[in-house]
């Protein structure tokens, strides 16, 4: 077998495996099992009024990043270093778009 044929065979095999991974991903995403699991999670979130994913449970602000005080990672003192490893995966949340303070009214 020519070297080029062998290489093209290997490349074809890789392409086939990538295609299979693609099909597997679509199946996991949209297949009956994936859809059922997603529906069950959504139903649970609606039923209990949950606000956050349960990914990191070591601290309040990693368990509920959306509900935590803004300063939570630095609560010991303003220049305190981040305690938790998962904090390194989390960027600070975007600043909230709160309305400007109303102008003080005359007494």
């Amino acid at each position, binding site marked *: 077998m*020519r*070297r*080029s*044929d062998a*290489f*093209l065979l*290997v*490349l074809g095999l*890789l*392409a086939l*495996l*990538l295609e299979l*991974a693609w099909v*597997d*991903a679509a199946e*996991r*995403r949209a297949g009956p099992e*994936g859809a*059922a*699991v*997603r529906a*069950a*999670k*959504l139903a*649970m*979130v609606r*039923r*209990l*009024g*949950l*606000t*956050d*994913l*349960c*990914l990191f*449970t*070591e*601290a*309040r602000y990693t*368990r509920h*990043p*959306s*509900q*935590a*005080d803004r300063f939570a990672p630095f609560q010991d003192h303003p220049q305190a270093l981040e305690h*938790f*490893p*998962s904090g*390194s*995966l*989390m*960027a*600070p*949340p*975007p600043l*909230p*778009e*709160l*309305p400007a303070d*109303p102008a003080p009214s005359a007494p």
Partner: protein
Amino acid sequence: MSQDLAPRPVSSWLERQRSLLDFTLASLSRRTGKNLSLLAVYALVVFALASVLLLTESLRAEARAVLAGAPDVVVQRLSAGRHDLTPADRVEPLAAIRGVRGAVGRRWGYYFGRGSQANFTVMVPERFWGAEGEVVVGEGVARVRAAAPGAEFPLRGADGHYLHLTVREVIPATTASVTSDLVLLSDAAFGRLFGQPADRFTDVALTVPNAKEVATVAEKVTRLFPDARPITRQELTRTYEAVFDWRSGLTVVILSAAVLAFALVAWDKAAGLSAEERREIGILKAIGWETSDVLTVKLWEGAVVSLTAFGLGWLAAYGHLFLGGAPLFEPVLRGWSTLSPARRLVPAAGGLEVLTLFILTVVPYTVATVVPAWRAATTDPDAVMRS
């Protein structure tokens, strides 16, 4: 007959490319060790980048899909800049805001289990379906406390006395990514556990049917109660977008160092042609090869290495995350958590992500291979061989 023997343009072009590919592979095999190690490092870089990309896309998609069911607005009360309990008499005025269909006071908090060394999220559902003295626990809680339905589930109250509760049921593990650390109990049991007065809520959840009115409602909330902090669902999802922003975080910083190191190796390998390679190009030119042939060989060389590395790296990342359960990322994802939810990642990366990674990894390497070869190939063969 003569027509059949005449070379067809397309097939002759293909045959020519195959011959050039044969030559490229033979040339690569003369430096097997060097090229194999380059391939391994290249595939490893693609693997690392693809793993981060696939993981963050998966978690981001999960957050987006699941948090669609989160409350429209959660109203907290701040006191001295910290979250504080909300008086129950605020629920009615909040419900009366135009655009709000309903307001529900929620009671939830955290409990640190000394025995299991794990944090639980203790919550009173709007309609708790268990009896008084019963708890419904998440999969992770059941795991770390070895609790099954019917088992005792003692919790130490704020006054130091134990509450003797019983596990009613364990929430199915399929919903672990949102419920793993939950302990659901009745309002009375929550009050006894944390010693909180019955007229105080942790926060208030508002239902706003019209999504366009959410921002206005949030504004009205802060006007009504200046110490309130409304958190809209859009902010929840934005928080998760930021959390999983794959450009941020330590992982990518570490990876970028690896990518830079690889770029240096690749550039050194590809850009700085060795004396042997320069001589080879000189000989090829001297025996009559066109510059375009030399460039095609070099293009094939880059493509062979980078396409193989991309395929291997991507497949390894996919297998690692979705078939193998991400064992390499587990320590980072687990962090210092004692209770870590059973993760079942669902792939979410689309064609755009694959294309982005392909362009970022394959194209630069291939180009870096061709440019120095073009320089050598356009020089006089005699000068190239002598240099």
